């Protein structure tokens, strides 16, 4: 599965499991958060990614973080 802040490009080239990342320069983090909060966010993103890996999906499916 692919975490990216540009999900429409991923969709165009045929990626099937797409999770929207936080931003282009920081797909799995958010520099505006305090370090502890950012780590929690990253764990949540990874949990969502694992959830997507264990879910049957149709072609070029995009999931939001929540």
């Amino acid at each position, binding site marked *: *599965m*692919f*975490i*990216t*802040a*540009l999900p*429409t*490009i*991923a969709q*165009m*080239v*045929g990626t*099937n*499991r797409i999770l929207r*990342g936080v*931003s*282009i*320069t*920081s*797909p*799995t*983090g958010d*520099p505006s958060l305090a370090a502890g909060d*950012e*780590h929690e966010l*990253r*764990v949540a*993103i*990874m*949990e969502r*990614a*694992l959830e997507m*890996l*264990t*879910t*049957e*999906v*149709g*072609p070029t*499916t995009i999931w939001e973080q929540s």
Partner: protein
Amino acid sequence: MDGGARVTIVHYVNQFFAGLGGEEAAGHEPVRLEGPQGPGRAFAGAGATPDVTLACGDDFFGEHESEALATLLAWLEELNPDVLICGPSFGSGRYGYSCGVLAREAGRRGIPVVAAMTPDSPGVMATEGAAYIVPTGSNVAAMRTVVPIMAGLATRLAAGEPVGSADEEGYLPRGLRSNVRSDRPGAVRAIDLLLAKLAGTVGTEVGPTGDRVPPAPAVSDLGGARLALVTEAGCVPQGNPDQLPTRHANVWLRYPIGEVDSLTAEAYESVHAGFDTTAANADPNRLVPLDAARALERRGAFGSLHDAFYTTSGVDTPVATAAKFGQEIAAELREAQVGAVILTGT
């Protein structure tokens, strides 16, 4: 003045070519500027002077596509141009994409559009045949050759003059079919087509659709699965010991993380030349989420983390090269009995 009808030309560029700034200005919202800016001056020199230049930051367009598009299209509706010129965006992924999307939407609204980019740019697919795209080389050195071709197409389109086929004019095939009257009977044309096919000289603008792979089945036993982290974000050990190219990468690399819990700024960095790496270099876990993967591994959320991560820098990377990297990495991961992969991209 030649007495000809005055035409309106609008030019779309990104923050860099509008002179707003480099990566630090990639989050710039859409702006409307009078007259030619940056490469617009070259178009002016080639007889297609932009009346108005529209610009948007690459990241802003990517992250707020509908908002950026709404603003840009409202300006286009107000200006009602005779032609829209996008770029050239050369091999740039984000800039090419924004040019392609704007070209598609403007084209669908009846505005003739001329763009220019590398044939494998994501912008070509985004355009969906709604614009004339002149193929370019991957960097700005191609500006000199491409501007006169774009300007020629733009002035003719603006004047409502006919434009020939992709083959005759040198733009990329748009996948269009148009009816033409032939002066030869069907039987003769059928034989000619058969002979051309035998000689291998048949041409078509209706190309095959892109590569499609069916979705992999869901991972059934995550608790027993080995998980790997892969990235195109150019993440490497500090100092880039193996000299991963910052763009046009011709290699992917593998780095051991068996004893690593987190990608610290002291030990890792990104050398990707396609985005502002300030935030990523302050904490490379923002690109490759190793610290979160370790936390979840300890919690038993999945079986185990593969003992290496895989990296390349996806900048100006042809689709064929990216596909080859993907196949090579996947083969190695399959060999290592990895059952699931999380790929991160910028």
